[in-house]
C-alpha cells in the first residue's frame, strides 16, 4: 500500500452565496466519497476542508534576513486549494480511480514520501 495526498482545487466564488442546504449537500458528497474509499479497500488517513485562500498568510524564511510575513496564499490561483485528503491505496491506478470519485473540480494526486527511519533519501 502507498499513501497519496489529494489536493482539492476549486473556484472559491462558490462560497459567496452558499446556502445551508448547498453546504449540507456538499458534506453529504464527501461522506459518500469516504464510503466509496472504504468500499474499494483503501483508507482515508486524514483530510480537512480549508478556509478560503484570502485568509491565508505566508511566511518566507530568508537567508540572512528576518522571515517575511505576507498576506495571502503562497501561489495565487484562480482555483484555490480548498481541502485535502491523505489516502492509503494499492497503487497509483487505484488512487486515480478514487480521485475520479472525489467531489472537487480539480484533484492533484501526490505520492507521500516515505520518511520512516529505514527509508532511503529521495532519488
Amino acid at each position, binding site marked *: 500500500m*502507498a499513501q*497519496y495526498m489529494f489536493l482539492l482545487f476549486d473556484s472559491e466564488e462558490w462560497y459567496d452565496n452558499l446556502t445551508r442546504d448547498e453546504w449540507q449537500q456538499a458534506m453529504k458528497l464527501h461522506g459518500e466519497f469516504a464510503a466509496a474509499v472504504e468500499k474499494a479497500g483503501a483508507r482515508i488517513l486524514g483530510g480537512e476542508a480549508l478556509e478560503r485562500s484570502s485568509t491565508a498568510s505566508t511566511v518566507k524564511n530568508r537567508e540572512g534576513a528576518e522571515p517575511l510575513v505576507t498576506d495571502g496564499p503562497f501561489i495565487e490561483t484562480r482555483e484555490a486549494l480548498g481541502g485535502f485528503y491523505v489516502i492509503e*491505496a*494499492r*497503487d*497509483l*491506478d487505484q*488512487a*486515480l480511480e478514487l480521485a475520479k470519485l472525489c467531489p472537487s473540480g480539480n484533484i492533484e*494526486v501526490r*505520492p507521500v*514520501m*516515505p520518511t520512516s527511519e*529505514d*527509508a*532511503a533519501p*529521495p*532519488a
Partner: protein
Amino acid sequence: MVTEAVEVTRVVDRAHRESWSTVLSSVVRLTRDLDLAEDCTQDAFVQALRTWPDGIPDNPAGWLTTVARRLALDRLRRETNLRRKLPLLVEQPDAEQPDDAEQPTDPLRLVFTCCHPALARESQVALTLRLICGLTTREVAAVLLIGEATAAARITRAKKKIAAAGIPYRIPADHELPARMDVVLTVVHLVYTAGYVATGVELTRTDLTGRAIELARMLERLMPDEPEPLALLGLLLMTEARGDARVSADGELVLLADQDRSRWDVKLLAEGVSRATAALQRGHGRFALQAAVAGLHVTAPSWEKTDWRQVVRMYDAMMVSWPTPIVALNRVAARSLVPGADLEAVLVELDALSKEPALATYAYLPATRADVLTRLGRPGEAAEAYEQAIHLTANETERRFLTTRQTNLGR
C-alpha cells in the same frame, strides 16, 4: 563449434531487436526496479557477444533471459540492505510468482507501464523507445528530434515517477482496457511515424518502422480479441508495403498518387488488408477507420480510380469520435480529390484550418494548399504555399520533392 564473428553480431543484433523487451520485462518482474533490470539486460547482451562465438544457443531469448535474471539475482543479493529502502514497482497481489523465468504477458505489462496515462505523452514515447524497443538514449534523442540531455532527462523523470508515484507493473483490468489501450496504440503509431518520416537524408528508418510493426504484432498476439490492435497492425503493414515504391531509384520521394503500384509488397498488403477487414467487422475505432482508408488506397487500381467519396466518409466518421486538426486536414485533402470537387470550397476549409495552432508547423497543410491552388490555376499563390511547406519539412527527400513541384509550376 566456433561461429564467425560477423554471424554472431548478426544473431545478437537480431535478438536485441526481437527479444529486448521480453528479456527486460522478465527481469523487471524479478527486480521491480527498471534501472537495475536495464543494466542486467544490457550486460546479458554483452555476455552474448563474448560467449556466443563458442556456439550460438538454440533459444537466444531464453539464454539471454536466464543470464540477465542471474545477474540481477546476484546484484540483489549483494545490495539487499540498500535496496530494501528504494521505492519499488507495485505489482498486483495475484501476479505470477516472481521466480518464473518467462511469462508470456511480461512485455505487455512493461508496455502498459511505459504508456501509463499519468505520464506525459512525450515521456511515454521516450520510455517506450528506450525500454520496449531497446534504443539507446542517443537514438531516442535522434528519433524524437531532441537533444540527448533532454531525452535522458525525460527518461529519468518518467522512471522516477513510475517508482515514486506507484504506477503499477500490470495489465489493466478489462473495464480499463479500452482507454488504456488507446494510449498504447497511439504510442506505437508514433514510433512507426517517427521511423517512417525520419529526419535527415534517409526517408525512412527501417529499424524503427520494423520495431513498431513488431510491437503491433505483439499487441495483436497478446490481445487477440481486441479489434483496435488488429487494425493498427493492418494499417502499419499496408503502409509498410508501399515503402519501396515511396522512393524512386535516385532516392526521390514519390507520392502515393505517382507510385508504381506494381512495386508494392503484395504479401505485406494481403496481410494488412486481411487484418483491416477483420478489425472493421468487429468495430469502428479510430485505427479501424484509418486502416479502412489505407485499405481503400491499396485496393484501388490507381490514384484517380480510388473511391474518394468512401475515403471522405471514413474521415467523416473519424471526425465524430476523434476530431483532431490532422484528421480534419486529411478529410479536406480527400474531399479535394473527389471527381468534380468544389475546389474553392476546399480552399476555404484549408484556410480555416491554417489557423489551428496544432497545424502551424505541419508541412502537409501548405503542401495541400499548394496542390489545390495549382489546380485552380493560381501558380503565384501555389509557389508561396510550396515555399512554406519547404520551410517546414524536416526531411531532406521531402524538401527536394516540394522544391521540384514548386519549380515545375511555371511550366
